[in-house]
């Protein structure tokens, strides 16, 4: 999987690059409009992370360029301008997703996966870990051959864990990704715990080989 990050803020660029490389992506970067245009014109990427505000041009123009070139790259807009107009404009112009800064890296990872999968079926259509297989498009989970019925939120929760097995998922990230703004941080600790407990019970009942491991003070890990 090859990803192009177009971002003018060097510190953020490096961080995202570092993280995505850790997730085994091939990452290339561009920190201005000109370099970005060159890269897009020369290479194909599975996913382009596009900052709207660049020093020498607008990300929106780049997006138009990508569409004119008839490129199939999935595009996720990253914007510090969390405005509805930008979002609508970006999505109208054919971006696959829109993320407002600041975003969590785990969330970014999940969105990249979804965008690539949706965009041109090049990504995995199923995610598997041990004897559990998850079908993101159909929103179904199988343990071995038997289907495990989960409600919407439980599915979302499991999906996040399945994308990054054996890595720590922070409670804050989980809460925000699955329950959005609606959950307060005060509640999230116990609430996530109870949700994980439910999910764990369901997995155990259907003899899944996966389990959650609590990482004290931070979150959980799928093992």
């Amino acid at each position: 999987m090859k990803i192009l990050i177009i971002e003018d803020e060097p510190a953020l660029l490096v961080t995202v690059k570092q993280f995505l490389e850790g997730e085994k992506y091939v990452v290339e970067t561009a920190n201005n409009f000109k370099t970005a245009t060159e890269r897009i014109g020369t290479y194909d990427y599975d996913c382009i992370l596009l900052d709207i505000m660049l020093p020498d041009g607008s990300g929106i123009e780049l997006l138009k360029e990508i569409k004119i070139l008839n490129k199939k790259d999935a595009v996720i807009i990253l914007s510090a301008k969390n405005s509805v107009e930008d979002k609508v404009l970006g999505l109208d112009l054919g971006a696959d997703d829109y993320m407002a800064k600041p975003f969590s890296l785990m969330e970014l990872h999940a969105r990249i996966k979804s965008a690539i999968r949706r965009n041109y079926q090049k990504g995995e259509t199923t995610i598997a870990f041990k004897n559990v297989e998850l079908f993101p498009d159909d929103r179904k989970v199988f343990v071995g051959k038997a289907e495990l019925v989960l409600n919407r939120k439980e599915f979302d929760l499991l999906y996040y864990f399945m994308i990054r097995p054996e890595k720590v998922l922070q409670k804050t990230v989980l809460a925000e990704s699955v329950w959005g703004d609606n959950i307060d941080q005060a509640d999230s600790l116990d609430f996530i715990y109870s949700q994980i407990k439910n999910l764990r019970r369901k997995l155990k009942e259907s003899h899944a080989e996966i389990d959650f491991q609590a990482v004290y003070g931070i979150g959980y890990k799928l093992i």
Partner: protein
Amino acid sequence: MSISLKNYTLKYLAAALLVIIAVWAALFYAVILDELYDNTDDGLKDLKIQIIRKAYTDDATLGINEFDFNQFKITPVSSAQYKEGNFFRNELFYMEYDDEMEPYRILETYFLDGNGNHYRLEIRTSTVEEDDFGLDLFFALIFLYIFLVVSIVLINNIVLKKVWKPFYGTLENLGKYEFGKQYKPKQNTTEIREFKLLDQKIDKMIERNETAFTQQKQFIENASHELQTPLAIAISKLDLLIERETVPQEILTDLSETKHGLIRLVNLNKSLLLLSRIENNQYTDKREIEINEVVKHVLDDFTDLLQFKNIVLDFAETAVFKTVINPDLAYILISNLIRNAVKYNSTGGKIIVTVHAAEITIKNTAVVKEPLNVELIFNRFYKAANDNTSTGLGLSIVKSIAENHADLNIIYAFENNFHVFSVKARNS
């Protein structure tokens, strides 16, 4: 109580006119009477000369000692009564024609005939009836006064209306003007220099204010935006650190708490940005939304949390509540209220959500059994004393959406140990 410019000037004009006319009437009355008597007296004096001359030559004249059609009488007097000079007086005589007593002007004088006898001559002439004259003058002046006031009202109405038209135009234009919205400077419709100047000054003032306002708006937005990137960097770096398996546990916990703090900052920043956008009318995409649907959607999102907190939800709808609002803001409005109802609720508590035709009420069991301070709860950054999880902006956002963006009102009440928040359509 305010009074229009027209009536205001009229009030003073009418009072002033009354005084002016009264004073003028008194002077006029005195001058005219004086002139009248003067004329009459001159006539009488002339007559006196003629009568005395006649009396010298014609003794019969001396025999006229009663007023009849001669209008004079001559009475012999002793030399002691003789006086030099003309004496005028007013006296009432019966006048047959009018069948009443009428005022006469009488000239009394003394003369000697050819033989040296003393005589008193009295000549009379009908003169003005002062009371009638006064009354006539009074009525004439009352009529004049009314006529003047009516004329002034009419002239005021026509002229002032015409004169002040540009001013009222300016007023109307200002009334339509909303801060932060495009202001249309008034077209040049007046030749009056003062109003032209007023229009120009207003246009300039608004332009200056708008510029300052835009800059400030821009500043808040830019500040919030500029904060996003460093926050994104800090949070991502922390994420990367937390990912590292080699980091010791205590440090991990510290890192996690640092991240918590940053996330609160992010939420605060987002809320401020949202608030400033609502207040700057930047959510222009409004359409008719069924609040019922929004509520169902929000409640669906809260199902897990309600279950987890063991809160009983009682949702009922008696009608469809439609209102014109931006869909995203409608969601934020309802979810902020529901979130508060969940957050400030006790385990095993209750939430009652009811949607009516033009109203939605959200009630929740109060943890502390006393009403909230209505004066404060909608203020920015107001928090209950021991609440460190809130940004203090949730209800400000709700109020701002309801009242600045949509045509809604938000009302708080405390009933039977329930906090009740109602959102009502303003025109119902």
